[in-house]
């Protein structure tokens, strides 16, 4: 029996395969039903509904009338430039933190890829900021940046890195924005590191052996083996991270919530402030919708930057 199958294996397999795949379509669609149902009701429908909301004068719990683009007009003209501040801040926040997270994440991954004692423990410890609930660790940072009892300032003053009483972290526009970015980098870097580490561990070791035999320095090995081999990971990580940072809400909400004087306002926070405490849900929807084209634009940019050289 075994030999019989083996002699005419190719045609039998082939036919079998065709028939099997013919029957795969119904099962394929069936398995997608729950996913498409959930995403349809709680993602696609609200998204389309949100577009309609932004064109109405709806309030919290009360559907309004169609008013065309008035919400967007109000957003652009009548909000004392807060809209522009929010857009600029959102881009700065995403751009600057991404550069730092990317480079620090690479350094962290290179270090973790070395052999040293307690490696497992160190790896788990460095991962902590990313997995601990954002809101909770940001509360700790808010306490560390307290206007009068800041332990960060205590450390800076006592190591003579800053003059007493040290910077007012959350009360001055520039400092508050910097604080937001510092904490975001603190939280986001491990994500990059762990992804890069995963990418590094599948690079074949003989590439490095060969390079060493040819006399390549550590730096040359890094730029001509490690970096190019990390390209696919880099693409995915950059995409995910830019999207999440661009639409970040919880961290900035806890740390500054737009204060002082709307100077750290981000589109996500501003949409919330108009929509929920302010009750102008349609205006909030209009603000958050601005995120969508911008996000698409940013993602297209990332894809363009990381396109494979042909």
């Amino acid at each position, binding site marked *: 029996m075994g030999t019989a199958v083996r002699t005419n294996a190719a045609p039998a397999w082939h036919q079998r395969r065709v028939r099997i795949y013919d029957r*795969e379509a119904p099962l394929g669609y069936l398995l997608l039903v*729950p*996913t498409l149902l959930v995403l349809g009701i709680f993602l696609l429908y609200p998204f389309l509904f949100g577009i309609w909301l932004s064109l109405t004068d709806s309030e919290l719990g009360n559907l309004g009338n169609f008013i065309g683009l008035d919400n967007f007009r109000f957003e652009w003209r009548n909000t004392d430039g807060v809209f522009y501040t929010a857009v600029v801040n959102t881009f700065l926040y995403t751009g600057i933190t991404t550069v730092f997270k990317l480079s620090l994440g690479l350094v962290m991954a290179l270090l973790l890829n070395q052999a040293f004692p307690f490696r497992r423990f160190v790896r788990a410890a460095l991962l902590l900021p990313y997995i601990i609930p954002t809101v909770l660790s940001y509360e700790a940072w808010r*306490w560390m940046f307290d206007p009068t009892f800041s332990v960060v300032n205590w450390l800076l003053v006592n190591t003579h890195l800053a003059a007493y009483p040290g910077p007012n972290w959350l009360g001055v526009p520039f400092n508050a924005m910097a604080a937001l970015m510092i904490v975001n980098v603190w939280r986001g870097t491990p994500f990059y590191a762990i*992804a890069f580490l995963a990418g590094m561990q599948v690079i074949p070791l003989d590439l490095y052996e060969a390079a060493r035999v040819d*006399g390549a320095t550590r730096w040359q090995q890094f730029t001509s083996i490690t970096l190019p081999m990390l390209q696919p990971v880099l693409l995915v990580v950059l995409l995910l991270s830019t999207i999440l940072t661009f639409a970040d809400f919880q961290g900035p909400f806890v740390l500054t919530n737009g204060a002082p004087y709307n100077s750290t306002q981000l589109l996500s926070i501003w949409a919330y402030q108009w929509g929920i405490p302010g009750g102008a849900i349609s205006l909030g929807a209009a603000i958050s919708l601005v995120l969508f084209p911008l996000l698409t634009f940013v993602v297209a940019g990332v894809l363009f930057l990381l396109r494979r050289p042909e």
Partner: protein
Amino acid sequence: MAAVARLKFRKPGTGRVIGDSFVGRAIRIYIPLLILLVVTLFPFYWMAVTSFKSASELFDFSVSPLWVRDPTLDWYRHLFTQTNFPRWAFNTALVATISTLISLFCSIMAGYSLARLRYRGADAIGWGIFVTYLVPPTLLFLPLTFVIRELHLFNNLWALILTYPTFLIPFCTWMLMGFFKGIPRELEEAALVDGATRIQAMLRIAIPLALPGILAAALFAFTLSWNEFLYALIFMNDSLVKTIPVGVTQELIHGDEFFWGELMAAALLGSVPVAVLYSFFVDYFVAGMTAGAVKG
């Protein structure tokens, strides 16, 4: 000569170069690692130290604030007896568990279907699921308030259980697709030739082999729902249905008064479950990233 001198021998598997001096390794590895560790862990250390300080010691910076002189458990006692913290912890665990299960159920099926079965439109749907990343919760929460109101789910934990999968499923599906693609097709084909149905091949062969991936996806999903803040902030107003992140930020701050000791005690306790989970499963976490990012 220089080239020969650089030709060092590696201990197999460790990546350590024999003859590498300790000082060299210290500058290259240990010192940077130490700096990273201190910066990474300090906020958690500060959280812990604060939670054991008495009210007067909290605001006493005349001596080093980095240590507790007179440790007290008052904040923890207060948290458990005077606030709804235990209830929030229960809610968070319940919501995270059920929404993780729902998401796994959906994304195992979707991931398998998209990675393994061939039919018209599979690629397009796969892309469609990936593109949902472009619609983060920040964009959805306002219209969702109407959907939740229509379903009469305000102040009902089901509102969270049903909305969390919208950001969990795309992530898990994408990750599991990587794992399913890594399982040799021949294994399933052999079962089919032996007379198994397509569903049996999936249940008995592909899914058991993808278990590490499923565990990684579960870990991600559980953490993401444990951490979720925006939906819980908006849909849960009654103190008894709040989750830890919302309860801690909304109810432990009274006006302008910050009870940092209690706040940090709650933050620490809210962080412990995910931290413990990760210290056990960090390898699966890395494997999950590898499957999603490298193969996917």
